[in-house]
């Protein structure tokens, strides 16, 4: 390539395979799809014309072509097309070093990791904002802020946004960024697929957000049929969103799994693999096996709405149980997709901050794989009172309770690791310790839900809502922030303001518990989930919860302030290895070179060699900048 910079006219620079073109093609594709759908379905539903715009096919085709246009605009068709034309394979996108690569198709796993972090962060804030609006409504026992339909859309948006976008909350940013560094690889197994997972997820997020233009949806994140069959076309946004998330999740899992299986550096045996990578293996197994069920289920639901099939319509010969079963066959592994990466992060970080090797490494792996296996055998505890398979409830009670044995292994490893260590309370460590507390409460409250007699009260109440917020927000989100404070200094080369970070932690931890602990009580007192009204005597407790939730929301603004202040305004350089970690990713220079390692390292031991005279973790882990 010529080194002479040729000034191109502005219009030529704007048009190309970039986000701007992609957006234009996406919007164009949407209207084309809408137009086609209107012509296919329009005439056959003439009696429906007074409710204009209720054409499911038009909306789904619009979304479909819109996403296709968006991906083509980003350049996803270039490689397959050029290969079909016989051009040589290349990874040329990766060599671009400008800031622009963050705004388009890039196959560098480190760029994709950063894209994920920011992209998911945006949707996490939208989802969080929905929660604030929900709590605003619940300040009063009867609706006074939002009409019931808008309230349900808020509930559904919050749940679906969090359950959908955050499935990749840790694997998207951190596994994509760190796994190749931790296993001594120059790239991922399928770099273009990796980029595709990110842009599909962003497209999905936009699809879900646009539901507000089409009447919203009133089914919550579970989308039960036949209720979903009644919904306005905003329901189609939900169906397509979750299907896209499923595709993205499946591909992300496949890519990470293939990377860890095939691209480990010499000497990095399975028994030397960092525990975080093991949690990625466990999570990706769930993603690869559970997500296809979701995609198929949502396709069936979409066909019920567009093509007059009756998979889930009882009155036309289908079964509403079929949807519930299929959804939870995916849905229960899904919650462990959210929980497992947190296990990995906590066990990965604890040894660094107590200066001891990870205690019970194999027990930890057994715990993660045990959870992975068991999570496929518990789904009917979500439908204990549905009337299906009532005789099997003792089995599902047993399998659900058994899953706490491998989860207990994780606690055992954490307890063994901190024992007689030299504990330092840095911010990531604080988040890990908070995880232990939150997940403990989340776990023991699960005992009440798994016990059928006790579940009669707690099922579908605020108790179960508090339970899964303790495991997902208390587990996933706390470990997510532990990972941010721990690894972002590596990813950006900049360090966070520690005082603001500590304020963020304490606000978040205290007000998380003050918000969600009373919800157990509200559930016990008979408050059902997703209801816009509640009994008048529960108002004091609800007002308390709402107030604390707002402070919890403000703690996120503290984090945002810290991010803007530290990473954009102050830009203080972080130390090369501030936590004195022995893991491979910290041995690389910052910023990490495009191809990570100049020479692939030879690994001679696991990264937990603390507590003894320091032995280099890998021979020949020479950074690409060439200091060795």
């Amino acid at each position, binding site marked *: 390539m010529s080194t002479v910079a040729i000034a191109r006219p502005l219009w030529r620079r704007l048009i190309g395979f970039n986000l701007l073109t992609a957006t234009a093609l996406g919007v164009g594709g949407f209207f084309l799809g809408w137009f086609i759908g209107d012509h296919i379905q329009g005439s056959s539903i003439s009696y*429906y014309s007074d409710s204009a715009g209720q054409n499911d096919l038009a909306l789904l085709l619009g979304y479909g072509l819109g996403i296709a246009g968006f991906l083509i605009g980003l350049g996803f068709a270039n490689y397959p097309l050029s290969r079909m034309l016989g051009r040589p394979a290349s990874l040329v996108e990766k060599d671009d070093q400008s800031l622009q690569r963050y705004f388009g198709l890039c196959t560098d796993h480190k760029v994709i990791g950063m894209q994920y972090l920011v992209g998911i962060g945006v949707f996490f804030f939208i989802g969080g904002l929905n929660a604030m609006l929900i709590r605003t409504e619940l300040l009063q026992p009867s609706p006074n802020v939002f009409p019931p339909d808008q309230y349900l859309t808020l509930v559904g948006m919050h749940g679906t946004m969090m359950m959908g976008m955050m499935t990749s909350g840790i694997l998207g940013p951190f596994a994509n960024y760190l796994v190749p560094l931790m296993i001594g690889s120059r790239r991922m197994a399928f770099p273009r697929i990796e980029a595709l997972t990110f842009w599909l997820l962003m497209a999905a997020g936009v699809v879900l957000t646009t539901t507000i233009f089409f009447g919203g949806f*009133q089914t919550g994140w579970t989308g039960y049929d036949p209720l979903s069959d009644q919904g306005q076309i905003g329901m189609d946004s939900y169906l397509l969103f979750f299907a896209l998330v499923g595709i993205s999740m499946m591909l992300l899992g496949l890519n990470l799994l293939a990377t860890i299986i095939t691209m480990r550096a010499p000497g990095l045996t399975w028994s030397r693999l960092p525990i975080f990578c093991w949690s990625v293996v466990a999570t990706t197994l769930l993603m690869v096996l559970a997500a296809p069920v979701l995609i198929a289920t949502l396709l069936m639901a979409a066909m019920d709405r567009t093509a007059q099939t009756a998979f889930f319509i009882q009155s036309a010969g289908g079964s509403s149980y079929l949807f519930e079963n299929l959804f939870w066959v995916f849905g229960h592994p899904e919650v462990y997709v959210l929980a497992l990466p947190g296990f990995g992060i906590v066990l990965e970080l604890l040894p660094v901050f107590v200066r*001891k090797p990870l*205690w*019970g490494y194999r027990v930890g792996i057994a715990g993660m794989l045990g959870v992975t296996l068991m999570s496929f055998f518990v789904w009917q505890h979500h439908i204990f009172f549905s009337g299906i398979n009532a005789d099997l*409830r003792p089995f599902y009670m047993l399998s659900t309770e058994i899953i706490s044995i491998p989860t*207990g292994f994780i606690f055992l490893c954490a307890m063994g690791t901190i024992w007689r260590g030299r504990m330092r309370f840095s911010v990531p460590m604080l988040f890990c*310790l908070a995880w232990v507390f939150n997940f403990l409460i989340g776990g023991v409250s699960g005992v009440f839900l798994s016990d059928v*007699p006790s579940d009669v009260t707690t*099922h579908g109440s605020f108790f179960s809502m508090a339970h899964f917020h303790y495991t997902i927000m208390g587990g996933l989100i706390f470990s997510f922030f532990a990972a941010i404070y721990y690894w972002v200094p590596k990813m950006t080369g900049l360090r966070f303001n520690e005082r603001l970070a500590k304020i963020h932690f304490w606000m978040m931890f205290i007000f998380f518990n003050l918000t969600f602990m009373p919800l157990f009580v509200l559930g016990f007192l008979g408050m059902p989930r997703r209801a816009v009204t509640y009994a008048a005597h529960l108002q004091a407790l609800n007002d308390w919860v709402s107030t604390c939730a707002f402070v919890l929301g403000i703690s996120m603004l503290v984090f945002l302030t810290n991010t803007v202040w530290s990473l954009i305004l102050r830009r203080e350089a972080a130390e090369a290895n501030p936590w004195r970690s022995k893991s491979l990713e910290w041995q690389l220079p910052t910023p990490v070179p495009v191809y990570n390692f100049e020479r692939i390292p030879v690994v001679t031991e696991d990264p937990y060699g603390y507590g003894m005279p320091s032995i280099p973790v890998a021979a020949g882990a020479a950074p690409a900048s060439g200091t060795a």
Partner: protein
Amino acid sequence: MDQHNHLRRVGLLWLLASAVATPLVIVLVGPIVPPGSGSVEASGQVTDNTVLLGMVTPVIVGIMVYFTYAMIVFRAAGDAVLEGPAVRGHRGAQFWWIVLTSATVLFLAAFGSWRLLQDGSGGGQGPSPIAVPAGKPLEVQVIAQQWQFTYRYPAYGGVETAHLELPDNQLVELHVTSLDVTHSFWAYQLGVKADANPGVDNVVYVTPTRLQSFDIRCSELCGLFHGYMFDTGEVVTPSAFDSWIAKQRVLFAPATRVLPPYATTYSPDPQRRAG
């Protein structure tokens, strides 16, 4: 201090704290756990909840004592980064952890199953229940639709009422079904919860033991006015029930004549989307 002294201390602290906390929780929280003594099933659930509280208290206390102790005693002072001992595991600790957690879990599952199989514990059991309490039940059908519950009494000419009244100290066999989407019938004080599915007869048993009104709520998201789908039921004396149901039969006689005959499920015409 060597490892054994630390462990002994934590163990002792745990025993002490559990010995104080567990009875306190059982005595103070036990009597107020839901759903109260409104029915045989509700009282059973209170027992279950109390046993579970008693089981989880020492677990929570144990982990909390352990981590608090570690955070205080094993914190690193000063800026120097000191290394801890290079211990990578302990076979005995791992073995006993697995044994103890497995025993706890198996006990919980066995206890829950045993309790469940007594009388169904107030949960929906589907069309062919296996946990059937002894006695001759009064059949009452709960019909859910968007967004209300109605009730049919097949033993009283299949009259459909807008209000639920149940006689005290009488085994009731509720048949829960739906006409449209999935709902859930939750009678909080009676300790009853059963999903209402279209085309499904979901049976649940309950024996009210206290004269009171009880709250009924839909606990499965069922669309726009899900939040408004609540009702108040009444447990009354058998004689009050007899006079109430006689009045209802007269009151609703014109409606009863045009109702479909009593059945365990109803199949309204399919409501389909146009496209």
